[in-house]
C-alpha cells in the first residue's frame, strides 16, 4: 500500500534519458544567483541554514561563557539580552526553517516524480531574500543602542516602550523572513497538489511529503499573523498607535495572545517535517515497512489542527480565568495523544526489524528517545498549577531544546546523512559520521539535561547572572555547550569531504530504503523526472 515495491514498478528506461536532456546552464556565481533548479536552491537553503546554525551557535557560546560563573564577567547585561534574542531568532527562522525548506526543495520533486518545483522562479526569490533579512537583523546589533534585546518572543511593552531604535530593522527583517516562508509554502503546496507522477495517489505519498504539505498549510495560516504582530509593534513604537499600550486603551496581554496564536503552530512547523524524516529513515534501517502509515498521516493532521487550540499554555501565569486555564491545559495534553501515536509507530517499526546502525539511523534513534523526553517535559509544563512554578525558568529552556535541538536539529542531521549519497554521489565517511553522532548525543545531554534541575530549583531564564547555588550545574551545562558547539564542526568536515570525493554511491545505498528518489542515479541528475515515472 505505501509503495514498498515502488521502485520495482518504475520504468527503468526513464532514468537513462536525463543526462541527454539537460540544457546548458550558467556557471559560477551566476548559476547560483539566477538558478531556478530545485536542487541548486535546495543546496543554497541548506548551506545558508548551516551558516546560520553556526552564527546562532556562536551567540549561544557567548551566553554559555557568561553563565559559566555567577556574576557578570564577559558581557554587558544588555548585550547578553541581545544574544539570547538574536540566538533564538536565528535558530528558529534562520537555521531550522530554512533547513526544512532546503530538504523540501531537494526531496519533494524527486519523491513525487516531478521534474522540478511547480514555481521555480518564485523559488529563487524566496531563497534570495533570506540573506538580506538576516543581514539586516544581524547588522542591527551594531547600531547605536544595540539590536533587539526583548527575547525572540518580543513581548510588548519590551519591544515597544522599552526597545532600542533598531526595532524597526527587526520588524523589517521578520517581514522578509515571513514573505520568504510564505512563498516557500505556496510552492510546496502547488508542487504536491499538481505535480505528482501518475499513480502517486494521496495515500502513497512518502510521509516527508505529507508532513511538509501540512506544515505548508500551517505556514500560510500563521506567518501572516506574525507579520501582523510585528506591524502592530512597529506602529505602536513609531506611529503612535496603542494596540498594546494600556495608556491608549490597548492591552499588552493581547500581544501574547496574538503572538502565541502564531507561536504555537510555529513550533509544530519546526517539528512536523522531522516526523516525516524519521518515518523514512527508521523503516530503511529496520528493513521493514513503516508501521501504521495511514495513522501517521491522520496523527500529523490532528496535531496541526489541535495546534491552534493550545496557544495560551504559554500564558498560564497571565491571570486567565480558571475555565480558560483548564481548557488550554486539556487541549495541550490532548496533543500528546497523536504525538504518542507516532512514537509508538516508530517503535513498532523497529520491533523485530533487522536493524543496522549507520549514522542516519543513530540520529533517528536518538531523535525518538530525546524528542520523547522533550514531550514529557512539555506534558509537565502543560499542567497549569505546576507551570506556575516552572514558567520562565530553565525547565522551559530544557523542554524546548530537547524538542528542537535533539528533536528538529537531530532529524535534519539524520536527513543530511541519509540523503548525502544521493546529493553528492559519494558515501560520507561512516567513521567521522559516527564520531559526530556520539560527540553530539553525549554533549547535547550534558548541555540540556541538567537545565531541568536548574529550572526546578528556580533559576530564571534570560538572566545574565544567577545566585551562587546554581554555579556547579551551570558550569557543567556550559561545558556541554562548548562540546556540542565544537562537535558540529565535525559535521562540516564530513559534508565537505563527501562533496569532494569518497566511495561512489550506488543508486540506492541503503538496502532497506524506499521511494522514487532511490531510482535515480547518484548523484541525482540536474533534472529529475523529465518524463514522469509510473507509480503503480
Amino acid at each position: 500500500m505505501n509503495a514498498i515495491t515502488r521502485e520495482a514498478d518504475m520504468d527503468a528506461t526513464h532514468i537513462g534519458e536525463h543526462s541527454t536532456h539537460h540544457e546548458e546552464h550558467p556557471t559560477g556565481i551566476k548559476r547560483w544567483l539566477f538558478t531556478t533548479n530545485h536542487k541548486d536552491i535546495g543546496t543554497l537553503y541548506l548551506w545558508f541554514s548551516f551558516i546560520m546554525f553556526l552564527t546562532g551557535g556562536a551567540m549561544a557560546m557567548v551566553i554559555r561563557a557568561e553563565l559559566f560563573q555567577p556574576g557578570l564577567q564577559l558581557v554587558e547585561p544588555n548585550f547578553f539580552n541581545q544574544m539570547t534574542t538574536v540566538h533564538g531568532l536565528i535558530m528558529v527562522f534562520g537555521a531550522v526553517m530554512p533547513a526544512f525548506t532546503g530538504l523540501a526543495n531537494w526531496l519533494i520533486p524527486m519523491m513525487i516524480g516531478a521534474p522540478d518545483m511547480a514555481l521555480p522562479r518564485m523559488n529563487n526569490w524566496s531563497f534570495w531574500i533570506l540573506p538580506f533579512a538576516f543581514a539586516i537583523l544581524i547588522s542591527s546589533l551594531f547600531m547605536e543602542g544595540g539590536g533587539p534585546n526583548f527575547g525572540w518572543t518580543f513581548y510588548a511593552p519590551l519591544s515597544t516602550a522599552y526597545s532600542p531604535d533598531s526595532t524597526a530593522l527587526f520588524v523589517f527583517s521578520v517581514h522578509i523572513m515571513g514573505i520568504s516562508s510564505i512563498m516557500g509554502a505556496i510552492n510546496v503546496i502547488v508542487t504536491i497538489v499538481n505535480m505528482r507522477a501518475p499513480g502517486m495517489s494521496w495515500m502513497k505519498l512518502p510521509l516527508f511529503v505529507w508532513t511538509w504539505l501540512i506544515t505548508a498549510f500551517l505556514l500560510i495560516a500563521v506567518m501572516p499573523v506574525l507579520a501582523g504582530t510585528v506591524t502592530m509593534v512597529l506602529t505602536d513604537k513609531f506611529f503612535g498607535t496603542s494596540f498594546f499600550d494600556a495608556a491608549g486603551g490597548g492591552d499588552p496581554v493581547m500581544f501574547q495572545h496574538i503572538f502565541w496564536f502564531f507561536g504555537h503552530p510555529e513550533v509544530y512547523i519546526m517539528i512536523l517535517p522531522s516526523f516525516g524524516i524519521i518515518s523514512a529513515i527508521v523503516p530503511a534501517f529496520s528493513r521493514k515497512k513503516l508501521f501504521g502509515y495511514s495513522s501517521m498521516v491522520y496523527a500529523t493532521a490532528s496535531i496541526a489542527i489541535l495546534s491552534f487550540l493550545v496557544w495560551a499554555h504559554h500564558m498560564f501565569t497571565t491571570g486567565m480565568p480558571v475555565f480558560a486555564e483548564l481548557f488550554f491545559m486539556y487541549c495541550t495534553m490532548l496533543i500528546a495523544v497523536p504525538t504518542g501515536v507516532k512514537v509508538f509507530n516508530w517503535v513498532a517499526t523497529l520491533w523485530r526489524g533487522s536493524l543496522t546502525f549507520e549514522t542516519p539511523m543513530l540520529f533517528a534513534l536518538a531523535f525518538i528517545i530525546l524528542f520523547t523526553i522533550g514531550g514529557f517535559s512539555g506534558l509537565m509544563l502543560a499542567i497549569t498549577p505546576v507551570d506556575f512554578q516552572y514558567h520562565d525558568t530553565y525547565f522551559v529552556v530544557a523542554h524546548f531544546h530537547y524538542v528542537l535541538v535533539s528533536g528538529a536539529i537531530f532529524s535534519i542531521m539524520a536527513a543530511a546523512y541519509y540523503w548525502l549519497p544521493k546529493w553528492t554521489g559519494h558515501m560520507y565517511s561512516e567513521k567521522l559520521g559516527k564520531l559526530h553522532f556520539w560527540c553530539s548525543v553525549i554533549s547535547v545531554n550534558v548541555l540540556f539535561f541538567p537545565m531541568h534541575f536548574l529550572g526546578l530549583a528556580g533559576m530564571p531564564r534570560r538572566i545574565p547572572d544567577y545566585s551562587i547555588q546554581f554555579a556547579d550545574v551551570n558550569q557543567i551545562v556550559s561545558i556541554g555547550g562548548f562540546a556540542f558547539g565544537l562537535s558540529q564542526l565535525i559535521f562540516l568536515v564530513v559534508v565537505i569531504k563527501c562533496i569532494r570525493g569518497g566511495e561512489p554511491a550506488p543508486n540506492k545505498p541503503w538496502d532497506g530504503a524506499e521511494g522514487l528518489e532511490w531510482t535515480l542515479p547518484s548523484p541525482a541528475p540536474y533534472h529529475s523526472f523529465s518524463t514522469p515515472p509510473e507509480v503503480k
Partner: protein
Amino acid sequence: MTDAKAYSNRKLIGLLLLGCVGMFGFGFALVPLYDVLCEKLGINGKTQSTAAEYKAVTIDTSRTVTVEFMAQTQKDMPWVFAPEMKRIQVHPGEVIRTQFHAKNLSAQQIVGQAIPSVSPGQGAAYFHKTECFCFNQQKLDANANAQLPLIFYVDTELPEQISTLTLSYTLYNITDKGYVDDVEQGAAK
C-alpha cells in the same frame, strides 16, 4: 507545462494568496475580537471606563470583602503616585470614598492617565466606580500635587469564591501623545 496545468497552478496560487491575506486580516481582527470577548466575558480585569450608577439597595453586612489598592508609574513618568490606604474591609453594597496622592516631581507640566485593572479578572465586573480620577486625564503643573478621588462599591452579586479584590492603577505619561479630551486640572492641594 500544459495550459491546463498552468491554469490549475494559477488557481491554487490565487487561493493560497487569498488565504494569506485573510490570515493577515485575521491577525488585526483579533484586536477588536479580544476587546469584545474580554468585555462580554468580563475576564481581563478591565473595569468600566465611565462612572457607574449606584444601584445597590441593600448592604450585605453578612459578608466582608478585602479591597487592596496598588499604584505604579510607568517609565518616563516622574510622579509620585500612591494610595491613601493600602487595604480596606468592605461589605458588598457599601459606598466607599478614598483617594490617591499624586505629586509631579519634574519641572514641567505633565499630563497623566491612570489605567485601572482588577484582579482576579472575573471580579472586575463586580467592582463599580461611581467616581474615579481614571475617567479623565490628569494634568499637574511642575512640582504640583493633588489628591485624586475614588468612590466605589462592590456588587452584592460578587461570586462567593472571591474574597479579595485588588485594584491596581498604572499611571502613564501621555503629555506628548496629544490626547486632549477633557483634561482635568489637578485640584486641591
